[in-house]
């Protein structure tokens, strides 16, 4: 016969006695149950619990080993919590059953020691789970951010290329317009205009006069035709009216061309500004078309090529918007991800988690702030390798250091000032300052700060080419406009749209002194010499092309492009005139605007005494605006001055705060 172990025997005894008592109770025969039966049942119960407790203790003892990693600890705690919970439930179940059967309670059972710690185990397990989960999310977000930043860099690189290309577009446009102007005797002098506003003002009276004349002619002609005149007379008088219309159109055309020239000479490379400018040009051209229609102008349109190039470039500029939108989306996405990343990192700063991290040697110490402050503890130092480079001063070898420990205390701080010295030879401080100040103005303008417009003065006479810039003096401006110095206008989000110009709220008022004399300028403005190695641009020769400008809704004009536009066989690089004597000669021989530089010269190493030489630019080449790259906003080259605010990008800490050395877009604080 198979022997039965004591545990089984006790369990059977427990079962049979339990049934015995329960039945007696059900039959109201409890009095038939002897006290021995109750005692036996209690003993069996205690015996069963002891066996279970023994099993439990054996199991639980295995779980009190030391774990090395948090992952191992998590597994250990999961088992421990499960085991302790199960044992507690077992004990409760047994006591409940005993009480149900006997209506008595049983006491003096061995205690489940771990029961007291169960909540702590659970809390610890929860902290470890949270930390590991946070870390998984952090890793995943960091990978995502890496990809997003790569994409952003690529898009920003594309934007930079686009902006470089925009300069070319602007140059081409200017060259085209200059060619058109210089190729038309009537309007050639516009290309030499110094102050367009002044010219426009002068033209106003002429426009009014010719309009009045035209109205008079038209009215008189209408009256005559109504009263009845011979057909011969009618034909004759109608030619008078047509001539008056032509005269009026000519002056209006001059006005439009002046305005166009003014717009085109202001070179833009940033998309939204460029787009805004092109919208203005479109509007001007559209008005011009309306004028031609209303006056029945049939003579060939001199701006056919210009319409064409504007239309062609507009499509290219539009393509940039896709990339710019993408940059905005990427920045938003990166900001969102970084915020998430910060929240996970912040969650890992809880004191419970930090204590566990310290226990597992993931961090060395952490400072737990008093609970009154209600501030989560912060990690004081991590066990990760120090990210700041170790001391590696080249001159340490020559230093006499008595205490070696001292060397270790010298921290390398990348942006610490090592030395201050004078400006090396070869730097033209004046030029450099002009350049830097131009950047300052541009950034100020981008931020909506009231920046005085720089007056551009070009050559006065062909024979005396002179280029310089005149900055309106504060006193002069203040007579015309009131500029509160400390008002910071709200920066509107300048998104590329069809209404860019309508967003401009600040009225630019020209100073009273509009056309300063060249002599005066040369006395007050320091302009460094241009390097003679400067290359003139490759000039795109105007082509006779069929005019198509669907955006302006203009029907194709049957225009013949007259061969008054200078023609060349091929585009070629024309050397920049090196002396002022050369310039007028070239102007006479070549009216294609070849002296307009594609890139502006480097004035370094040049002397201010050479003012007036090589300065045939209609625009003041005192700055190299092309080098200003607002795209570097989030790069290490970032001035910290935003290009255009998009979304809620915080550009970083303020004065007195430590700028994060890593390139990062932070969440709005």
């Amino acid at each position, binding site marked *: 016969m198979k022997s039965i172990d004591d545990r089984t025997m006790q369990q059977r005894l427990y079962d049979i006695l339990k049934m015995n008592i329960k039945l007696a109770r059900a039959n109201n025969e409890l009095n038939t149950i002897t006290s021995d039966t109750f005692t036996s049942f209690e003993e069996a119960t205690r015996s069963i619990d002891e066996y279970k407790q023994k099993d439990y203790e054996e199991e639980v003892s295995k779980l009190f080993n030391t774990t090395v990693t948090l992952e191992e600890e998590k597994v250990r705690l999961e088992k421990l919590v499960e085991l302790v919970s199960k044992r507690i439930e077992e004990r409760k179940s047994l006591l409940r059953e005993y009480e149900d059967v006997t209506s008595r309670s049983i006491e003096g059972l061995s205690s489940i020691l771990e029961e007291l710690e169960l909540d702590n185990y659970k809390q610890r397990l929860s902290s470890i789970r949270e930390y590991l989960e946070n870390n998984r999310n952090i890793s995943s977000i960091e990978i995502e951010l890496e990809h997003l930043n790569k994409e952003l860099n690529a898009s920003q690189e594309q934007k930079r290329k686009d902006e470089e290309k925009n300069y070319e577009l602007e140059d081409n446009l200017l060259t085209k317009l200059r060619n058109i102007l210089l190729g038309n005797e009537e309007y050639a002098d516009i290309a030499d205009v110094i102050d367009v506003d002044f010219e426009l003002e002068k033209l106003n009276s002429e426009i009014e006069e010719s309009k009045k004349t035209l109205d008079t002619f038209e009215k008189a002609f209408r009256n005559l035709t109504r009263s009845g005149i011979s057909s011969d007379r009618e034909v004759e008088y109608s030619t008078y009216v047509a001539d008056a219309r032509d005269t009026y159109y000519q002056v209006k055309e001059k006005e439009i061309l002046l305005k166009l020239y003014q717009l085109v000479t202001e070179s833009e490379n940033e998309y939204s500004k460029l787009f805004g400018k092109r919208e203005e040009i479109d509007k001007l051209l559209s008005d011009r078309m309306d004028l031609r229609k209303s006056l029945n102008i049939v003579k060939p349109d001199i701006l056919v090529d210009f319409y064409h190039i504007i239309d062609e470039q507009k499509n290219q500029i539009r393509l940039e918007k896709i990339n710019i939108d993408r940059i905005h989306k990427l920045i938003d996405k990166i900001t969102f991800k970084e915020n998430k990343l910060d929240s996970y990192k912040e969650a890992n700063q809880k004191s419970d988690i930090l204590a566990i991290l310290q226990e597992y040697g993931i961090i060395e110490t952490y400072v737990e702030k008093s609970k009154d402050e209600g501030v989560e503890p912060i990690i004081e130092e991590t066990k990760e390798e120090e990210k700041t480079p170790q001391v590696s001063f080249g001159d340490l070898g020559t230093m006499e250091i008595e205490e070696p420990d001292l060397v270790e205390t010298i*921290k390398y*701080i*990348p*942006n*610490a*000032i*090592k*030395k*201050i*010295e*004078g*400006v*090396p030879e*070869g*730097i033209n*401080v004046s030029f*450099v*300052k002009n*350049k*830097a*100040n131009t*950047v*300052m*103005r541009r*950034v*100020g303008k981008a*931020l*909506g*700060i*009231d*920046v*005085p417009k720089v007056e551009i003065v070009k050559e006065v006479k062909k024979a005396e080419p002179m280029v310089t810039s005149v*900055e309106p*003096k*504060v006193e002069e*401006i203040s007579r015309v406009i009131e500029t509160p*110095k*400390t008002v*910071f206008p709200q*920066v509107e989000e300048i998104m590329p749209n069809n209404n860019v110009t309508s967003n401009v709220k600040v009225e630019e008022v020209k100073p009273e002194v509009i056309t300063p004399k060249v002599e005066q300028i040369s006395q007050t403005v320091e302009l460094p010499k241009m390097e003679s190695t400067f290359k003139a641009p490759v000039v795109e020769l105007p082509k006779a092309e069929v005019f198509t400008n669907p955006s302006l809704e203009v029907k194709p004009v049957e225009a013949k492009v007259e061969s008054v536009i200078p023609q060349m066989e091929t585009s070629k690089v024309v050397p920049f005139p090196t002396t002022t004597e050369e310039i007028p000669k070239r102007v006479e021989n070549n009216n294609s605007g070849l002296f307009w530089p594609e890139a502006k010269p480097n004035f*370094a190493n040049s002397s201010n005494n050479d003012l007036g030489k090589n300065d045939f630019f209609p625009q003041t080449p005192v700055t190299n605006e092309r*080098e*200003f*790259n607002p795209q*570097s906003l989030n790069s*290490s*080259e*970032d*001035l*910290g*001055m*935003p290009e255009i605010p998009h979304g809620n990008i915080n*550009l*970083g*800490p*303020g*004065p*007195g705060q*430590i*700028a994060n050395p890593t390139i990062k877009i932070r969440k709005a604080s």
Partner: protein
Amino acid sequence: MNIELNTIITLENGEEYLTIDKVTKDNIDYYYIAQLNEEKNDIANNYKVVIIKKEDGKDVIEEVLGEDNLKEILPLFIDKIKE
């Protein structure tokens, strides 16, 4: 620390900056600086508005960042340019 204008600041990381301009606000000196190019004959396309702070006994430049901060400081520089 007061730094003269038109001087070259060399940082520990080797970068060199020309001090273009300086303004003072709330007793803090703000410098407008431009990084020198490698040839040291011109400035590179890197401009900063910075303050000088002490850190571990060293004078350290700290860039002023953030649109709001720049909106406060830039007008002071621009006013100086006007003059």
